[in-house]
């Protein structure tokens, strides 16, 4: 399976200059890729483009030669940097999770999610607790490619390992593609088979 971005250029509607210029990026599910770069260079923006959040960019994004669907479930899923932003504040956590899929109890405990959290609202959980839901939600069986945008920055070292291990296990089991965006070079070097430096691919 191959996720391919070709000649991607993008600028935010109100910005004067291009943020991304002629980016070519090839990812596949045989290796785990890391994406590193300084803060504010546009990593999150590129991730959003690769997972179908924007349509107003130049270039193409294809999964196995197919454009990403706009109206159906997107096989490329993004784990967002800030979990509280991807949850409706008026929804209980059970609904938040089930908006994507019905997770079995095994997986819940593997991600350290307690059933008692299900009846709470997002504001009533910590950032780390929310991120577990956000991660698990993206692991819908229909997901083929997973992009994790600094998903562990708000977790302590132990939780970070616990969640990453759980994700990597599923990624290997289901032979999914995985792109890890991080500031943490140590983490990228331990987990990833391949590292892409953002400034090398961005033609600005």
């Amino acid at each position, binding site marked *: 399976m191959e996720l391919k971005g070709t000649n991607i250029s993008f600028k935010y509607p109100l910005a004067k200059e291009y943020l991304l210029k002629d980016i070519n990026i090839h990812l596949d599910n045989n290796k785990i890729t890391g994406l590193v770069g300084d803060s504010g260079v546009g990593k999150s923006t590129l991730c959003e483009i690769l997972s179908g959040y924007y349509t107003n960019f130049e270039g193409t994004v294809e999964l196995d030669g197919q454009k990403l669907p*706009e109206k159906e*479930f997107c096989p490329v899923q993004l784990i967002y940097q800030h979990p509280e932003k991807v*949850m409706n504040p008026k929804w209980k956590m059970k609904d938040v999770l089930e908006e994507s899929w019905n997770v079995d109890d095994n997986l819940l405990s593997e991600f350290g999610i307690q059933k008692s959290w299900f009846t709470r609202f997002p504001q009533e959980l910590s950032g780390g607790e929310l991120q577990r839901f956000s991660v698990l939600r993206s692991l819908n069986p229909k997901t083929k490619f997973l992009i994790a945008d600094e998903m562990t920055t708000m977790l302590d070292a132990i939780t970070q390992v616990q969640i990453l291990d759980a994700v990597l296990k599923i990624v290997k089991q289901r032979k999914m593609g995985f792109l890890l965006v991080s500031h943490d070079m140590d983490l990228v070097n331990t987990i990833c088979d391949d590292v892409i430096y953002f400034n090398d691919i961005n033609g600005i």
Partner: protein
Amino acid sequence: MADKSKDVSSIYSPIAKMNLRTKTLLTIGLTVFILVAVVITSLFINSADITTNFNAMNQAPSFEHLFGTDWMGRDMFTRTMKGLGLSVQIGAGASILSSVIAIILAFVGSINSKLDSFIAWLVDLFLSVPHILLIILISIGLGGGAFGVTMGVALTHWTSLTRILRAEIKQINTSEFVKLSQRFGKSKIWIAKKHILPLVITQIIVGTILIFPHAIMHEASVTFLGFGLSPHEPAIGIILSESMKYLATGNWWLALFPGLALLIIVLLFDIAGENIKKLLDPTSANE
């Protein structure tokens, strides 16, 4: 010193001791109780019971006739209560209809962007014509009466709630959780129902209640001007316009009490609306 005086007052006044939430709830309870009482009382008053009594014509307010009697000896208190009940009912019909229109337009706009521009244009169009004029035109066009007035008021009062809802929905549509929902393959209608509705329900409830006072006032004014309810109906607008003829002869109570009662009802709705807003708005709920 300031603290001390506050303490003293709180010992003597049980109302000052309550927190804001309890006070808000109490205010809402009280206003709703009065409004419901008015409507129920009016429902028990049979128009046929408001009999003419030529032995008791043009009497000033007394214990027997709290609001006095008119030139046909009818008890003004009974007439006023009947009229208020009618006003609240027409207000309810018009407000609910208005907010249904607003909800439909706002949600249709959120699903289809072309229709959204049309709706924005429609809002501006309706806002650029004076309300009272439109109500009169629509009321006459639909044959007057309770139906004409209700439609006239309903068709002119959806604009502000539509504006609020459109702005709110636009903002929610740019949020990350809505974009993610789309990536999960959810349809726009599903998103409108599940994501957007729970976030705007407060505005809808408060907006509907706050249309009430406008609706009641406009109904009364249009009726007063002779373009609304027919002269046979026991409406406040009718009572007021009739009593105009007798004001010169010194029968001040004919206009004062019904007018004051209408004003109080309108104020009660305003108070109820503002307090419900306080209660439902999480930013001010726990103060």
